[in-house]
């Protein structure tokens, strides 16, 4: 099993969700984060003092899938999130050693979907 973590632009969340649903991936966990990367930040000024802000708002999407779905998931995310501009984000994949459905206690492949 794999855990796929994508950091995307906030305004792309809807498109990513749509692509995932089309690819029959319906389960995910989403949260707001801030990130810095190649995209440069901005300056704020408050009462005459200038601040360098380099963390920009991003959305993190986490999806646990069985190995055979990993590629399809990554592809769907890319389809939804890519604009071709700096700041589009990254996808990180890690191995998942176990997955348990709290409601039933089911484990592994059966629990993930």
């Amino acid at each position, binding site marked *: 099993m794999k855990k796929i973590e994508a950091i995307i632009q906030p*305004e792309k969340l809807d498109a990513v969700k749509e692509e995932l649903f089309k690819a029959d991936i319906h389960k995910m966990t989403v949260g707001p984060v*801030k990130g810095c990367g190649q995209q440069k930040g*901005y*300056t*704020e*000024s*408050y009462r005459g003092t200038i*601040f360098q*802000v380099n*963390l920009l708002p991003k959305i993190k999407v986490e999806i646990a899938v069985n190995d055979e779905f990993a590629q399809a998931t990554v592809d769907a995310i890319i389809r939804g999130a890519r604009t071709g501009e700096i700041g589009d984000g990254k996808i990180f994949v890690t191995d998942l050693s176990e997955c348990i459905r709290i409601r039933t206690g089911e484990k592994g492949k059966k629990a993930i979907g």
Partner: protein
Amino acid sequence: MEVTFNQLFNSSNVLFLLLGAMYVFSMHAGLAFLEVGSVRKKSQVNALVKILTDWGFTTLVYFIIGYPIAYGISFLVPASELLGDNQGFDLVHFFFLLTFAACIPAIISGGIAERAKYWPQIIAGAIFAGIVYPFFESLVWGQNPLLGQAGSWLTTITGGIPFHYYAGSVVVHSVGGWIALPAVIILGPRLKRYVNGASNAIKVSNIPFLALGSWLLCVGWFGFNVMSAQDIAGISGLVALNSLMAMVGGIIAALIVSGNDVTFIHNGALAGLIAVCSGSDVMHPLGALVVGGVAAVIFVKLFHIETEVLKIDDVLGVWPLHGVAGTWGGIACGIFGSKALGGLGGVSFLAQAVGSVAALVLAFVCGFVVYKVLDVTVGIRLSEHDEIMGPDLSIHKIEAYPEEAL
């Protein structure tokens, strides 16, 4: 100190109009918070700055240009002359009328929110509050007797009855709302508001602030309407009661028509209050209830048509709210003010229709010309990058909740 009757009367009069001015001034805070709550977080600061600084510029242009246009009175004389022998009543009179003029840019602000440049809008606001509005004011209330004055031109075709106004349904709200319509159209919708012809509604940020804005407006409106007597001896309890009933009509109609939608309910109260202004001194309270209820229905339905069918991205719905409900109010005064419907009479449907339509035509045309010229010269819209960042960061270099930025 021995106080004479005249002194007490003048003093009470100054107090009366001052209170009116203070209430309408506080309504500008209401407009600010209504906008703060109705835009996205990244445009809240801009909403606050626009309303307060528009107020500042309006004061200057109305003081120097607008008031002389409307009433032929200039303030460039020594302070002792300004005071006069009525304890400076003329000065609070100016203050009171200013609070009306300043509504024009504040109304427009809500329609063009989240994507307009700052300075071009300040210039447009100054033109409206300094020239267009005072000119129309002069035709209705002021030195050029065309519509509203006893003996004005209009009375020659309505059998002697001029255009009836009490407070500002038409002069303030419909003018503001109908100027905003071309502004919103020329500006175009916010990015991603309509995607491939499909509507993609953008969610508001903060209902409590929106409601706070609505409350400030509702409370202040009793000052707006009642103090429109402009003379304490002309105060009328009927104006207060009619304002109340129209507001209630708006609340309940919006509740029912919208299916318990909090934003429509809080705006429905305003629709009712906008519509009642003109005829608040002549209608029966039950008439006012109906006028307010109809105004709210107009707002709810027309906002949907405007933003979903016509795809005009009027963020706060200022055209249906101030524009159309204001026009409805002007006309409704000619209906519900009649004796047949329990009103005090003395109003003419024809005069109301002519006056109301004249206002909307003037407003739409002037709005169109001013924004078109600004658009092709300096440009009125933020760059795409600035709009995505949000006006708060791109114009004011700060977010509404700075501590949250990391």
